[in-house]
């Protein structure tokens, strides 16, 4: 059903090559042009099965860099691929766990710990999406989802708590990536894992901000929301620091605009709209 002029057979063949190239053993970022083709494939055919099959048949588990690059690719395809990708990913958790299990603890290039943490994060993300299928892979703000939670304050409270849980996990994972930088290398491969994390944390932050604002407008009992406000505030400072550190990585800022957060968290009693996307 693609309305684009495409050829399914050719697309399948190219997909295999793109997966292979995106996950090759070079210690660099997975090339965006190959990742993009994987994303576009899922939209063209409303399916990600061939993408997952393609990953499984690649001999990537023997090599830590390849495994790490595969996880970055998976993360990006989950974020920007057709929504079906997330649904179909629930059947792939076994493969993801295998990625974490296969890698050793003391690996020569130090990706072992990062791989295990990345798998943990992706699994947490998938659990969230299974529970709340109305969110897309990048948590892009849509008015109706916010309102839905607001009508039922308990539900809204839970959604925000869950989003904050995910945000905390992003935060500890990004810290780990920074801690694994090496002075000798250019760290491009590690830095490229920060790209989807910046985007995702920003989507979550925007969502939480606008949803908390909407809830403050609706409720008369703002005291009940105090725990969320406190947590929001501490996440704001963590995120600000994360973005600040990212903005010093030239390689990263050449790929995406890193958001710049204000010194202090935005006022939640405010009527303002969600912060603008970078």
């Amino acid at each position, binding site marked *: 059903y693609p*309305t684009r002029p495409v050829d399914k057979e050719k697309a399948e063949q190219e997909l295999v090559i793109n997966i292979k190239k995106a996950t090759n053993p070079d210690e660099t970022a997975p090339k965006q*042009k190959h990742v993009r083709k994987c994303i*576009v494939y899922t939209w063209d055919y409303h399916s990600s099965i061939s993408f997952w099959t393609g990953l499984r048949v690649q001999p990537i588990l023997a090599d830590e860099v390849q495994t790490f690059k595969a996880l970055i690719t998976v993360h990006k395809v989950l974020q920007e691929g057709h929504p079906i990708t997330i649904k179909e990913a629930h059947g792939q958790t076994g493969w993801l766990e295998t990625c974490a299990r296969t890698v050793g603890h003391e690996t020569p290039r130090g990706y072992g710990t990062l791989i295990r943490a990345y798998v943990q994060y992706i699994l947490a993300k998938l659990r969230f999406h299974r529970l709340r299928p109305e969110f897309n892979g990048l948590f892009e703000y849509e008015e109706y989802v916010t309102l839905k939670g607001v009508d039922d304050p308990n539900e809204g409270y839970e959604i925000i708590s869950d989003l904050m849980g995910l945000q905390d996990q992003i935060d500890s994972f990004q810290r780990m990536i920074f801690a694994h930088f090496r002075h000798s290398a250019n760290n491009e491969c590690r830095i490229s894992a920060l790209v989807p994390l910046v985007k995702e944390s920003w989507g979550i932050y925007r969502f939480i901000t606008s949803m908390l604002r909407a809830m403050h407008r609706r409720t008369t009992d703002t005291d009940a929301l105090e725990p969320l406000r406190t947590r929001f505030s501490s996440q704001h400072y963590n995120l600000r620091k994360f973005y600040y550190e990212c903005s010093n990585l030239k390689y990263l800022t050449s790929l995406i605009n890193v958001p710049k957060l204000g010194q202090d968290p935005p006022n939640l009693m405010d009527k303002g709209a969600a912060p603008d996307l970078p």
Partner: protein
Amino acid sequence: MSTLQHFGKGALRVAKNYTKGYSDTQAKVRDATSNDPWGPSGTQMNEVAQMTYNQNDFVEIMEMLDKRLNDKGKNWRHVFKSLTLLDYLLHAGSENVVIYFRDNLYIIKTLKEFQYVDEYGKDLGANVRQKAKDITNLLQDEGRLREERRTRAHMRDRMVGRSP
């Protein structure tokens, strides 16, 4: 690059249009989105925009635009100029262009991380990334796009001396 070289390239493009059997419509799109370091010109873009109102031409234009938008990094100008042309078409072309690219938004959206660094280490992808971002925002803002299309049509009517 010398002008002569570009002249040579232009001749090659004409030959390619012929040997690959591209139609006149497709040749126009190819010209407007070529690797020449200038343009596309307003006249070129306007011509293509008018052609999108014809269903046959529309299909051919989309086909060629799709090819150019998915071109590789070395041909970043193809991609950049296709985005420039697309921006114009969204404003002045047929409504079908808007519908088509809303359906296939991901083609544009995924160009937001387009990368190309030339042999001197110069980042030539930045232009594409910015343009992809602008067009994505425009396509996602129905109200704004509608308003901008109306203003454009208005302006055109006034310029040709028709009352609105």
